[in-house]
Every structure is written in structure tokens, then in C-alpha cells.
């Protein structure tokens, strides 16, 4: 061990980049370490140095295949409602219906440049899986998606979409059959096939260099939005609001604004039904990791987590499947600790109301994930200044059934009556 420390020239550089403050790192089985180093190398060459025109090809494909740039839209009726200028970054218009493709296409393309022959990915509700399947079809790469059995059964349309895009879907029977188990299983596949396979992780989580890599692919959101708001509103916004599950749309929406100290950044997590954790059952009725989590290691990185005092990861819960994750990107944990990003949470009811409100007022049906950012706008708009950008990370078509079911159970002011079938 004294050798490691006596070896600074070779070690310090990657070490420094491996973490965000105390967060991040590479807590993975030894078998994966060489692949992570290979990926670090590819990240440096292709992404940071644009070797072989990688980033040019990425941008061109995101334009032609992905539909970028997405608009930054002034929301007339929300602006009126909140008596300030509200702009929506329309990631719901990206091919596939969410920001997820920014990352999936970037990683599949990178895998191709790296000479990998096969793509694997985990998916929860299916958003990252469908984005990866689309990207893999587009780039002609064999693709397998791991998805918990419970999710397979409750997200059939997404399973069909992946199959139609030619991806294999591998149901994971372990545990509760949801995202956490799917990630575990994808890591196991990767640990077995690492030499020819690239694991396309779905958010800014996982071991280094994934959090940086995914963030860089997603930061096109803030790169565009920063230009657009200056062009359209003549100045930088007072605040940027984005929902946070793993945090990829979040850091995507924040990244280019981080140096702009006048811009407040709000990461809105799923408050679920309550912010408490049931220690005995290992359940959190929320996934408000940044607000309530404690430091620990999950899926390869040190970050804030929802865990029991013993260190077992709890089952998180949110009406929005895409936010339902017990971890969060290490970079966000760091930016929250340094005070640059303000964490917030919005509960299920408020998110559902926000879903209905945007649909009804603006003619945009947002993803339930994005509805959390919009719910925060409703609750906290007075603190957000005069010019606010909200990232609409995805569209809500995928959520219709959930919203109908959950709306029926509650008494929501913003919900319409949908019973036209018996009239």
C-alpha cells in the first residue's frame, strides 16, 4: 500500500478525475476495472478530444436521428399563472420521447468506436431500454436489455418497443424484479462478457467514468438552453429546475450553468408519499436521495443513498418509475454538499397535479418524472426569480395508464374527468 501512495505521478491524475469531491470512484469487481480503464481512455480520446470526429458524428446523428436541437419554449399560460417568465426545455421532443437518447446514442456510438460488438443495458420502466434499443438498431449493434420481471409485466408497451427495435429483453427474476435488480444483473452480464461488450448505463450513476461520460452526452441540454434563453429572453435565467432520478437530465440541464453563479439550480426528487424510511422493512416511500439520503456505495460509486443504518439499500417508491431509484449521481451529491445545487422534493400528489396542469394549460403531456420539476414550480415559484427554465425531460404518453389509475385514487384539483365511455 505504501507503494500506491509512493506512486503519485501515475495515479494522481486519474484519481483526481475519478471522484467529485468525496463522491464517485470505482467500486466494482476487479474483473471490470480494465474495461473501465479502457472506457476512460475512450472517453478522453473520443469525447473530450473528438478523435476521429467522434463528437461531430454524435452531434450530427443527434440532429438527424434524434431531432436536436430541442426547442426552448416560453410557456405562456404558466408564465401568466406564476407571474414570471417560464421557459420549458422540450426534451420530450427527442426521438423516443425523452432525454434518454442523448446518452444512449452517445454510448452506443462510443462502443462502436471502441470496437465493441455487443451492447447491454438495464432498464426500469423501460425508458432507457427503449432509447438504447433505438440507438443500437440505428447503429446496427446487437443489444440486450435487462429488466426486472415485475417491470417487464407492468411496462409491456416498452418491452414490445424494445423487441421491435430488435433488442433482446432479459427478464430478471431476483428480488422485487425492478430497476435495482436489473442493474445488478447487467453488471453480472458485463462482468462475464466485458471484453467484447459495452454496458450502456442509463444515468449519471455507476463507476467512473460513467458519471462524467453520461453527463457530457446530456449536457447538450444546457448547452442549447443557455444559448436559447439568452437569444429569446436576452439574459441568463434566475433558476433552472429539473427532476432527479439518477440525475442525468438534471446534470444535463445544469452543467453549462454551473459556472454561472447567478443561476440557481434546483434538483427535484420524488417525495413519494412521505419522506420517512421504514428501517425494519427496508422501505422508503420516496426516492428523495439528495434530500434525505446518507453517504454510501451503490452500483460502483460513493454517493448519497437511501439505506438502512446497517447499509442495506432500501426499496424506494415513487409514482414515477423513472425517479424510483435509491441512489443518485455522485456529481449531484457533491454539488448539493457544496451548495451549488439545491435539492427539493415533490410528492406524488403534487406531481400528478402538475402532470394534469401542464397537459391542460400548455397542451404538453409531460412525463411523470418531469412533472416533479413542474410540481416544484407550482410550490416554490416565488423563490425562483423572474426568469425560470424548467427541463421537461420527457413526454407522458408512457404514463397515461399510471396517471389514470393514480388519479382515480385521489382527489386532485387539476385532474379532468375522463369518463366519456359511458356517455
Amino acid at each position: 500500500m505504501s507503494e500506491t501512495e509512493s506512486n503519485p505521478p501515475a495515479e494522481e491524475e486519474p484519481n483526481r478525475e475519478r471522484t467529485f469531491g468525496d463522491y464517485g470512484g470505482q467500486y466494482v469487481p476487479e474483473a471490470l476495472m480494465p474495461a473501465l480503464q479502457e472506457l476512460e481512455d475512450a472517453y478522453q480520446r473520443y469525447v473530450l478530444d473528438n478523435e476521429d470526429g467522434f463528437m461531430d458524428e454524435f452531434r450530427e446523428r443527434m440532429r438527424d436521428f434524434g431531432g436536436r436541437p430541442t426547442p426552448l419554449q416560453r410557456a405562456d399560460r404558466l408564465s401568466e399563472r406564476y407571474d414570471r417568465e417560464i421557459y420549458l426545455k422540450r426534451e420530450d421532443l427527442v426521438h423516443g420521447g425523452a432525454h434518454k437518447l442523448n446518452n444512449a446514442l452517445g454510448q452506443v456510438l462510443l462502443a462502436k468506436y471502441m470496437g465493441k460488438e455487443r451492447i447491454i443495458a438495464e432498464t426500469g420502466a423501460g425508458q432507457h431500454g427503449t432509447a438504447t434499443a433505438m440507438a443500437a438498431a440505428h447503429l446496427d449493434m446487437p443489444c440486450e436489455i435487462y429488466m426486472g420481471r415485475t417491470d417487464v409485466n407492468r411496462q409491456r408497451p416498452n418491452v414490445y418497443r424494445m423487441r421491435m427495435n430488435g433488442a433482446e429483453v432479459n427478464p430478471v427474476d431476483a428480488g422485487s424484479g425492478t430497476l435495482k435488480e436489473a442493474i445488478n444483473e447487467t453488471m453480472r452480464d458485463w462482468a462475464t462478457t466485458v471484453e467484447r461488450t459495452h454496458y450502456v448505463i442509463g444515468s449519471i450513476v455507476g463507476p467512473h467514468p460513467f458519471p462524467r461520460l453520461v453527463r457530457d452526452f446530456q449536457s447538450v441540454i444546457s448547452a442549447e438552453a443557455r444559448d436559447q434563453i439568452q437569444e429569446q429572453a436576452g439574459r441568463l435565467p434566475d433558476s433552472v429546475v429539473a427532476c432527479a432520478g439518477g440525475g442525468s437530465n438534471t446534470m444535463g440541464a445544469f452543467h453549462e450553468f454551473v459556472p454561472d453563479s447567478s443561476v440557481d439550480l434546483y434538483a427535484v426528487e420524488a417525495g413519494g408519499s412521505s419522506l420517512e424510511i421504514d428501517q425494519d422493512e427496508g422501505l422508503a416511500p420516496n426516492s428523495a436521495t439528495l434530500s434525505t439520503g446518507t453517504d454510501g456505495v451503490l452500483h460502483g460509486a460513493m454517493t448519497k443513498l437511501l439505506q438502512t443504518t446497517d447499509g442495506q439499500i432500501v426499496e424506494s417508491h415513487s409514482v414515477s418509475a423513472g425517479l424510483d431509484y435509491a441512489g443518485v449521481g455522485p456529481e449531484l451529491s457533491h454539488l448539493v454538499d457544496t451548495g451549488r445545487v439545491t435539492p427539493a422534493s415533490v410528492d406524488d400528489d403534487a406531481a400528478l397535479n402538475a402532470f394534469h396542469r401542464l397537459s391542460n394549460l400548455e397542451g404538453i403531456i409531460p412525463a411523470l418524472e418531469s412533472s416533479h420539476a413542474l410540481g416544484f414550480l407550482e410550490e416554490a415559484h416565488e423563490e425562483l426569480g423572474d426568469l425560470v427554465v424548467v427541463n421537461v425531460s420527457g413526454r407522458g404518453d408512457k404514463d397515461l395508464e399510471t396517471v389514470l389509475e393514480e388519479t382515480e385514487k385521489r382527489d386532485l384539483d387539476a385532474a379532468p374527468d375522463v369518463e366519456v365511455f359511458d356517455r
Partner: protein
Amino acid sequence: MSGEQTATIDSDIEAAIRENHPALITYITAGDPSLEDTKEYVEALDRGGSDLIELGLPFSEPIAEGPTIQAAINRALDAGTTPARFFDLVDELETDAPLLVMTYYNMILQYGSEPDVRPFVERAADAGLSGIIVPDLPAEEADPLRDACDDHGLDLVFIVAPTTAGERLDRIMSQVSGFAYVQARLGTTGARADVSNATHDSLTRLSAYDVPKAVGFGVSEGDHAAEIIEAGADGVIVGSALVDLIAEHGTGDAPAAAALESKARELKRGARCGGEQRNGHEQGREEAPEPEQP
């Protein structure tokens, strides 16, 4: 190099391997299906000839395990296995074989009131454990835990995978503490029907390093043990095959302990047999041209 080897000479673990060469290292998950059962099973494995025993402290996200150990971990968690109860069990255990704990990094970090590895290591040392294996802790992230282990005289065993090579392999091999855990093949734990080519390749690759090497991942039969030892390993590590026996026999069942004991015997016998074969070759070789002795 020789200085380092001297440093690890106080290691119970290294001693256990060197003295009982070729060594049998057995693994079961603590709390599967209950901690009372685990006590019996550990004693049975000890009787059966284990030279080292690894006890798994269950973590909810066992990314390096295959289905067998995953299921064992779930049974253990369902049975209410916690770090506190785990250490209580270890306190009670009296075995000839030194004991190691195998668990994921977050379990170590969370023990005690703050995220910090030291309280866990202290308690482990207190309970008489000889070492720690952490499947999700590569050398690059290991400094804090290694420091704590050093301070308390525990070995921190590293895994060497089929993909580990070049400069990283040198570095890891130069820091071996207890033994090098040689991962027999890519993938996760789990009993397999054969010994992979990767095992032979790895052992060839590692033969230049003069540290104790134990091979795990997929070893399930006496024959495998023999083959692996013959191929140059100093020990074999067997987990899933034992966990399978536990799963088959169910809770509080004397036959489970008996089955574990006799499986351990089979494996130890296989290992010995492999050792004799190897000695045969080596003598053969010594009679032949000239060995490349250092």
C-alpha cells in the same frame, strides 16, 4: 520483496494456506437459512477439513454473485441477519480454520454511526476474524480499508480476475495480503460443471508471482479441486456448491451439516490429490532439463 513477505508472515491466513498446502477454502452465507444453522455448518466445514472459512455477511445488492449465492443472501436477509448479529455469531465460533468475512463495501462503510471503515474492522478483529474480502473493492479504492486492516492485523484479500493484467496485475500482486483470490473465469460466482480454460491461463500467467494463490468461482467437485491444484494453485475456494447443499437440505436439518462436512472432505481430498500430481510433475521436471528456479 522478501521484506514484504516477512510483513505478511504474521498472517494467520497465509500461514493456514502454507501449512495445509494445498488448502481448501470454503464459503457459506451467514444467516442462511439462520445464524444458528450457520454455526453448525461452520463447525461441519471445519471438521470436514477446511483450512480457511469465508463467511458472507449479506448485502442487498450482491453484484458479483450468481443466482445461488444471491438466493442465499436473500434467505439470510429475510432471516434478519444484521452485522451486529453476524459478529455475535463469530464471537461464539471456535474453529481450527481461521475465518474471513466476505461482504460488500457499503456494509463495511455503514457499520458504526458514520460512514467509516474503521468500526467494522475493529469489531471484526475483536471477533477474531483474520481477514476481509470485498468483491466490489478494487485496489484503486482500497486505501482506507487497507490502512484499517493493517492497523488491526487483518488481511485484506484482493481478487485477481482473468482480465487483470499488465501494470495493474503487478501492483496487485505486490500488495497481496493473505493470498491472491484468483477468479477462475469471467462472470459471477456459481457452481460450474468444469474448470475453465481461463483458470489454466490465469495460473500460468500468475506463476511468476511467488504469493499464495487460491482459485474460486465455479469450483464444485473434488475433481475440479484436483485439476486446479495440479495446475499450480495453492488452494481452492468453494462456495456455491456448498450453498446448494444448504438450499437442498433446508433449515435445522442435521443432514445439511453432514452433507457439508462430507463435501468438504471430498474437496480437500481432491485438492490433496491434485497436489500430489503436481509434486509428481515437479519432481519429473526436476529430473528433466533444469527448472527455472529463482
